[in-house]
Each structure stands twice: as structure tokens, then as C-alpha cells.
């Protein structure tokens, strides 16, 4: 994909930066990103239609409900811009249904690719290093911010250039990247369990003069047994009906207090 060959109009350049800096500034429960989307596409509306009745009709349409992953939205803005620049107001309904059609699938891929995976990998490494007193991994977040910007820009170009046909081919490629990234994510999580969860058995058998600590027995079976059990228990809890992360948090706090005072583990 050669982005250099495409010339963006000055308005379209503004559209991108407006989304990048303020796409979710006016996020609300009713139209979600609708306000941000309208704010972003406004330079194009102003340029193509001015303050005419046409412009007002397009504006109403662009101010409707919109919600997708905000890193993926530039694809839709690009497609929208390309169609409007060539078709004008007659494309209004087509643009509206394209936006609606694309926002769902792009949200799913984008949330995994730009939220879950970086959260897992960078978040794990940053937390782990921070717990050891090292702030260095925080740079990874900043680096990711720049990487994301670059990707968003190329998405915008791609959307503008390829228009509608792009979504299918892109979907396949992103799916592969996603599944490879999942491999990395799972490995990191596996390593995280014994590294960051602090739980060791404190109970000791006393038989005459012999003391046997449960922890040293557990270590011989499997190091990290207590953290693994805690994760399994939490995983199981989350799968129960009527459970959400807030309730599980409260249960874990209770378990911690009980476990310490009953001398199970600490």
C-alpha cells in the first residue's frame, strides 16, 4: 500500500487531526461518538456545501449515533471523505449506512488490537517492572502512543484510497495479527501469575519436635501453586452468574482478610 501517491485535500488532513485529538471529547450516552464524528468531518462539510441547506442536511446525518474503536475510526472517516468528495450530498444515505455497517466489525477488531493486547503485554511488563521499582517500561506506553498514531494515519489513507472494498481484505490480515498477538499475550499472562501474585501458605504442622511448613511441601509439588489456585478461583468466580469485576474485587478483599486471620496464607 503506497500512501505517498494519494493527495489528501487540506480539509481531509484537518478531518484526521480533529479525530485524533478530539474524537471522543464529547462522548455521551445518547450518540456516543456522534458529536466527535461530526466535529471531525465538519471541515469537509464546510468546504463541500458551505452553510447551505445541503450542508445542514449532511450535518444532521453526520451527527447521528456513532460508536467504534477510536483507533479504527479513521478508516471510516477516510471512506466517508472519499465518497462525499466524489458524490456530494447524493451519497448521504450511502455514507450513513456504510458508517453503521463498518463500525461494528471494526470495533471488535480494534478493541482487541488496540486495547486488550497492548493492555495485556505493555500493562503486564510495566506493572511487573514497577513493582520491582523500575519505571523504565512506562516508555512503552508512550512508544505505543506514537505507533498508534502512525497506524491511525495509514488507516485513514487506506480508507480514503480503497474505500469500501478495503474492509474485507483488511479483516483477514488483522485476524492473523490478532491471533499471533494472542500467543504472546497468553505467554505473558502465564508468566505473570507466579511473578506478581503474592500468596504463600503459612500453615505449619507441628508433630513433636518436627515442623513441616505447607509452603515447602507445595514448592516441591509446584512452585507458584498458591498464586495459580487464587487465579483459578477468581476465574471460576467471574464465570458465575450475577458476578462482575466489582463484586469479585470485594470478595477477594474479604478472602485476603480471612486468609490472613485464619492463617491460611499471607
Amino acid at each position: 500500500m503506497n500512501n505517498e501517491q494519494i493527495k489528501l485535500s487540506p480539509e481531509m488532513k484537518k478531518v484526521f487531526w480533529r479525530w485524533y485529538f478530539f474524537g471522543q471529547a464529547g462522548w455521551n450516552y445518547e450518540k456516543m461518538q456522534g458529536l466527535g464524528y461530526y466535529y471531525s468531518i465538519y471541515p469537509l462539510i464546510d468546504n463541500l456545501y458551505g452553510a447551505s441547506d445541503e450542508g445542514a442536511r449532511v450535518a444532521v446525518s453526520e451527527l447521528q449515533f456513532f460508536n467504534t474503536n477510536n483507533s479504527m475510526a479513521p478508516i471510516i472517516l477516510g471512506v466517508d471523505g472519499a465518497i462525499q468528495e466524489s458524490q456530494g450530498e447524493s451519497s448521504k444515505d450511502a455514507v450513513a449506512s456504510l458508517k453503521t455497517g463498518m463500525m461494528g466489525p471494526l470495533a471488535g477488531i480494534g478493541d482487541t488490537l488496540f486495547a486488550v493486547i497492548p493492555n495485556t503485554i505493555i500493562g503486564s511488563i510495566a506493572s511487573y517492572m514497577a513493582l520491582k521499582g523500575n519505571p523504565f517500561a512506562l516508555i512503552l506506553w508512550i512508544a505505543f502512543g506514537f505507533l498508534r498514531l502512525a497506524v491511525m494515519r495509514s488507516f485513514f489513507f487506506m480508507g480514503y484510497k480503497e474505500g469500501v472494498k478495503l474492509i474485507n481484505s483488511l479483516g483477514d490480515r488483522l485476524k492473523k495479527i490478532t491471533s499471533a498477538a494472542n500467543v504472546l499475550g497468553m505467554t505473558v499472562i502465564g508468566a505473570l501469575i507466579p511473578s506478581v501474585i503474592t500468596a504463600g501458605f503459612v500453615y505449619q504442622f507441628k508433630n513433636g519436635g518436627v515442623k513441616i511448613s505447607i509452603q515447602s511441601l507445595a514448592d516441591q509439588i509446584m512452585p507458584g501453586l498458591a498464586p495459580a489456585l487464587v487465579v483459578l478461583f477468581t476465574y471460576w468466580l467471574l464465570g458465575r452468574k450475577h458476578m462482575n469485576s466489582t463484586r469479585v474485587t470485594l470478595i477477594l478483599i474479604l478472602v485476603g482478610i480471612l486468609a490472613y486471620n485464619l492463617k491460611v496464607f499471607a
Partner: protein
Amino acid sequence: MHIEWWQILLLTLYSGFAIYDGNNTTFGAVKPTMAGFFAGLILGDVQTGLIVGGTLNLLVLGVGNFGGSSMPDYMTGALLGTAFAVMSGKGAEFGATLAVPIGLLMIQLDVLARFCNTFIQHRAETLVSEQHLKRATYMNLMGIIPTSLSRMLPVFLALVFGSQFVQGVVDSLPMWLMNGLKTAGGILPALGIAILLRYLPVQKNMAFLLVGFFLAAFLKVPVIGAAMIGLAMALVAFNFDSPRAQVATGENSVNGDDMEDE
């Protein structure tokens, strides 16, 4: 320790900026680790900030505010948790455990801010219907005000009035509770991990989870080392998945095909 006015100011400004950054530019300011680090830097105790932030960050590994759901705001939790840990001198674990209820309470304010923006959306719709297309765009920028204030006000108030209040609470807490909370702080990261496991395709990737656990638990490999092995395996998986590799491996890939389309 007494907190200075400029420290309160900087922490308040940070909370407003962080929530803007989290929603838009995404340079990590909203991540608890970053917030804890910043608070530690401002208050002169980076280690405490890092530990409070790192602990809280583990809680939200798998939590994302997708489709507008509100999540516990551990950015604010990390700022205040670090501040109270340093001010009370009770240590990082105390700060981290204190930050959890703060983060949970903040969900309500996040909901309130997003709700306030509904009025701004209505205002924009009215302006557009009156043909004030440009003025309607300013409404989007107005949305920053409720969102940022939803973090800045509680941080400001908590820091101005909270230090004595928090000190009072700390002094009245019994030992069994303090130590119990410490143990709770140790196991709470399991939540972030468990949520991730619920979200990711665990069954398909169980092998990699085991490899990671084995590396860290038995071989004592640090997480970054395990991440390198993970990256290597991810690259292998990616190349194996590509169409060229399927042609090259011929018959063998036929059986593997059902793995790919999920």
C-alpha cells in the same frame, strides 16, 4: 508528611489531562502505573508511587471501557493512593488497598460526566437545526469540561481535606484489618489476570499459558524474558498462518485449517 499547594495543583491537573489522553491521544497517562509514577515523582517517593500504580495496573489488565462501559478508575486511585501512602507514611501496600475503593467509587462520577455530555449533544443538535453548523462543532470541545472535572474535583478535594481525614482513619484501623488488607493486596492482581483469561481464547492457547507459567514458576525467568519466548512463538504462529506457509507444508496444513477461522 504535609502536602504543598503546588503538589495538589500538579496532581489535580494531571488527573484532568490523563482522562483526556485516555479518551483521545492515548499516551498512557491514564494507566495506573504512569499515574502512580507521576504522583510519586511529585511527592518525592517514586518507589511508593510505582508499587501503588503497578499493583493497581494489574487489576485492570483485562478491563477496557468498550462501547462506553465505565471501568474502575484506578488512575485516580493510583494518584490518591500514592499521595495518602506518602502522607501517612504507612507504605505502598496501604496506598494500593486504599486506592481500590477510590477507583470503584469513581465509576459513579464517570457515569455522571458521560451523562452530562448528553446535554451537550442535544445543544449541538439544536444548533445544527438552526444552521449554526460551526458553532455546533464547539460543543464537542465543551465535552472535555465535564469529563476532566469528574476527575479533577475529587482529586483536589481529597488532597485538600483528605490528609487529616485519612490519617484519622489510619489511626483507628486495627492490626488484624491492616494486615488482612495487605494479604488482600497481594492476591488482588489475580482479578486482572482472570478477566483477561475470560476475554482471550484460552482453550485455543492453553499451551502458551502453561509455557509462560512454567518459565516463571520453575525456571524463575522474569516476565520480560517470558515475553521474548512469547514473541518468538507468536512469530512462528504468524508465519505458519500465512498462505505461503500453507502451500509449502502441503497436506499437513489441511488438518490444521480448522484452527484458523475463529
